[in-house]
């Protein structure tokens, strides 16, 4: 019995099964639900660590199940898959803890955590997918699993945000589907292969291949929030904070960006795509999105909306790194998949803490909040500086490699984009930090969490009468520390950068 063939499937099931059980749980079974959530998250972590260890030892993890005539459902643990899968596994664990704290005493928690688990299942499936149809399957599942989370609050506004979200994502999915079918009819295979599986097609197919590339990128660009396909993202901010955190850092947006990486590297092959001439337009689009997102972020007063536009901008760094089509830029783009996740989830956790504890939703209400919630704001500060690209935080590493990669391939205009974007990042993050740390705090906060109803237990739940509950405070601290560590310890083995280098070498230098 070869167990290695089942490990990738088990990774998927480790969140699917708890999720399905949670759907059936009564609302008041809090302990059991928490236990199931944590059990799922932890067992996934163990399985993924096992796979990473195994891949280092030279084992091969691949699950194949029949899906269609001549097409299989393939889950495979390659280097790129492992990078994304470990990111989502770790952040899922953290977000689960956060969500448990955030949604304490709120209604419909079984429904929420059920879909939350499904959402992670889909993300892990996207990460492990070994061919385009498996990718498509989980990509669509992700759309379906996130919808109930976006409309979770059950208001008319939430419903409309959900409809907008679907209008974009389902249309994107349709484009992806038609592109996939077309590709399949040309090649008869959809298996992800390093350097792609298209380069031996005849030249008469090149126009078709360019159209297919456009279809696939448009379909993926919706989730990756490439301008002009980004409209759903700011609206989806209506969702509860843990959902926004997950959507922006791990699940939806990342699935899109990850898909672009897959299509360029493992379907077309980066050199073939560059020869087709499709990467340059993609790079311009990404560059435009980077600047546009940052500009729009400048003018948002709502904290979560500002973060949303910042995401639009930051995720396109990944696309840019891919589209520059050079080994060093690849490292920058791929590693940003992880770095942006760590930093952005920190920022969203902090925004959620402010909203949940003090009722702060707007930047103009953040005066002096650093003294009220120092730890939260410290984490926020690390995230913000990381986004700006200040060393030694993770974001600096990404930008460094992106810039170096652009110079290396002779596309110096990218440096201007990076510099401009960093300036804009500073322009919209530094005022927040200034307000939080240096402005005097107001008499009272917009809507301070009472905490009194816990009576004498208050000290147990609130940290030194000041900050917020442990479950809300720990996650941003952990992720901020990871963002810092990813920057400080870049040369350690198993660091995201080392993985990204491995992936780049595999794509560019191996025969």
């Amino acid at each position, binding site marked *: 019995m070869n167990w290695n063939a089942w490990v990738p499937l088990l990774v998927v099931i480790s969140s699917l099964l708890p999720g399905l059980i949670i*759907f059936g749980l009564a609302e008041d079974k809090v302990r059991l639900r928490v236990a199931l959530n944590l059990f799922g998250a932890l067992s996934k972590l163990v399985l993924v660590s096992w796979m990473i260890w195994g891949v280092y030892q030279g084992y091969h993890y691949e699950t194949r*199940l*029949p*899906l*269609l*005539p001549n097409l299989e459902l393939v889950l495979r643990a390659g280097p790129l898959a492992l990078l994304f899968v470990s990111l989502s596994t770790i952040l899922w664990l953290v977000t689960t803890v956060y969500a448990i704290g955030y949604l304490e005493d709120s*209604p*419909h928690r079984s*429904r929420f955590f059920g879909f939350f688990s499904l959402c992670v299942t889909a993300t892990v499936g996207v990460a492990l997918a070994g061919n385009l149809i498996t990718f*498509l*399957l989980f990509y*669509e*599942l992700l*759309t*379906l699993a996130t*919808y*109930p989370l976006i*409309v*979770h609050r*059950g*208001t*008319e506004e*939430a*419903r409309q945000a*959900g*409809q907008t979200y*679907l*209008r974009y994502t*389902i*249309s994107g*999915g*349709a484009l992806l*589907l*038609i592109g996939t*079918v*077309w590709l*399949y*009819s040309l090649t008869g295979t959809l298996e992800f292969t390093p350097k792609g599986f298209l380069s031996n097609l005849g030249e008469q197919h090149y126009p078709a291949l360019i159209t297919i590339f456009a279809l696939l990128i448009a379909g993926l660009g919706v989730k990756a929030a490439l301008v002009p396909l980004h409209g759903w993202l700011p609206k989806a901010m209506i969702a509860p904070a843990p959902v926004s955190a997950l959507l922006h850092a791990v699940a939806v947006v990342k699935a899109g960006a990850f898909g672009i990486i897959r299509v360029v590297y493992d379907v077309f092959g980066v050199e073939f795509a560059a020869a087709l001439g499709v990467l340059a337009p993609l790079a311009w689009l990404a560059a435009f999105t980077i600047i546009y997102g940052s500009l729009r972020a400048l003018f948002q007063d709502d904290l979560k909306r500002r973060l949303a536009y910042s995401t639009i901008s930051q995720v396109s760094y990944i696309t840019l790194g891919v589209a520059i089509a050079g080994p060093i830029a690849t490292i920058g783009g791929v590693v940003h998949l992880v770095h942006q996740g760590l930093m952005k989830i920190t920022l969203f956790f902090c925004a959620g803490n402010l909203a949940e504890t003090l009722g702060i939703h707007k930047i103009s209400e953040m005066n002096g909040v650093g003294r009220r919630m120092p730890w939260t704001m410290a984490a926020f500060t690390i995230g913000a500086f990381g986004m700006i690209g200040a060393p030694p935080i993770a974001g600096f590493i990404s930008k460094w490699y992106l810039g170096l990669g652009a110079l290396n391939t002779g596309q110096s205009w990218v440096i201007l984009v990076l510099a401009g974007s960093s300036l804009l990042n500073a322009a919209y993050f530094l005022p927040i930090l200034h307000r939080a740390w240096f402005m005097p705090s107001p008499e009272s906060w917009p809507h301070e969490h009472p905490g009194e109803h816990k009576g004498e237990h208050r000290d147990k739940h609130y940290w030194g009468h000041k900050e917020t509950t442990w479950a809300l405070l720990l996650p941003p601290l952990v992720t901020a520390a990871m963002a810092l560590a990813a920057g400080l310890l870049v040369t350690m083995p198993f660091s995201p950068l080392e993985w990204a280098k491995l992936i780049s070498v595999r794509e560019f230098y191996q025969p």
Partner: protein
Amino acid sequence: MAMQNAFMAFPWAVALILLPLTGAICCFLFPRISRALGLITSFAIVVSVVGLGWQLLEHGSYRHAVGGWGAPLGIELYADGLSLLMLATTALVGFAISVYSTTYFKPALAVRFWPIWMCLLAALNALFLSADIFNLYVTLELLGLSAVALTALTGSKEALSGAMRYLLATLLASLAYLLGVTLLYHSFGSVDITILAQQMQAYHAATSSVTPAVWAALGLMAAGLMLKTAIFPLHFWLPPAHGSAPAPVSALLSALVVKASFYILLRLWFTLFEPLVDGEAINTMMGLLGCAAILWGSVQAMRQTRLKLLIAYSTVAQIGYLFLVFPLTASMGSTAWNGVAYLIISHALAKSAMFLCAGNLLCFGGHDRIADLDRVVQRLPLTAAAFALAGVSIMGLPPSGGFIGKWLLLEAAVTQGRWDIAAVMMLGGLLAAAYIFKVIGHTFIQAPVTHEAQPVSASMQWSALLLAIGAMLLGFLSLPVLSLLNISDITLASGVGS
């Protein structure tokens, strides 16, 4: 061993027809226990289909001369992969509907429902097993009449007018079909499909022309069957009938009854007519009608404010997909063919689940206005889940049977360069998502008008949910299902008897 031999030799095909007929008579004679009788019969049908499936797997396609008298004198039953799948779908959906109906109908209605429902099942099973065009007519007529009777079951004004339209349409359609049968019988002296196909081809080979009688028969039969299948623009009778019938009846009408006439159309077209006539023009026309149905049905579904009508128009749209088999099978048979067969099955499961959900919602809130589906997700979670899962299959999103069917059809369309068809299919999928999520969106939020909720029985909720889960699971079962489908190919059916 003897057990197994007896199992293999048992005429399961005959049982499939006799069981529901006996059930109908018993339900009529013993109305007090009709519920139990109906349920037992439905279950026995499931067992018989398993038996028949076993036989087919062992021996390939199956012929049974009833009473020992074969064609051309007696009645022959015939089963191949396609009939087996249709029978299996009927048995499963039928069983779920029976379970649902045990608590749905109040005793006064139940007395009328069960005998007619059993008749309808008998008609369906006989139809899928018939080997000659006259028997097909008989089963078609029995099917139509029992379907009309079920539509009118409640006796409300709305139901009666819907049923009346349905009755006129179905009678007209049967009449047209019967005329076609007489024309063919007059020309070739047989009603057995296999013999007819041989005669027609022999005549065609000898004279290399197609007689006006054959053309007329083709026109009449196709028109009648298309009217019964409710393909655009002949769908006018469907929404009022399906929208006003009791929920389990709507479910079986949409899931099974319209598929039956489509099944005959498929059989006759590909075995009798297509080898003779130049199919190009007709195939194109069928494809056009299919495309129009997809778009028109979906747009109409989006505009509805009542759930049952929305689902009924969705059926109009989904029937359109089935007609795409005609233009797409022309050059590459198996992919489009498999796709349509898959769509038939998954639509049957998903659509019946949807109508059962609509029935639950009607029981629950006393209305089916979409805008007032007040937080159903929380208050009736099983039903909401069933509706959503069935919706995923209808939209053709993975993982579901609908996705597999759509993928295969798309693959056929793209391979043959039929971008127009591919585009319509994609658009149809988007529109389907629009109308289904319109419903789902409203189930999440609080409606302006709240209402008193009535309890909905567990069997009603679970039968809907299990059907929907079945439609989901089909997304992972394509290989076994398709291998069943290809037990004996339709294009070979003409050669089987010789």
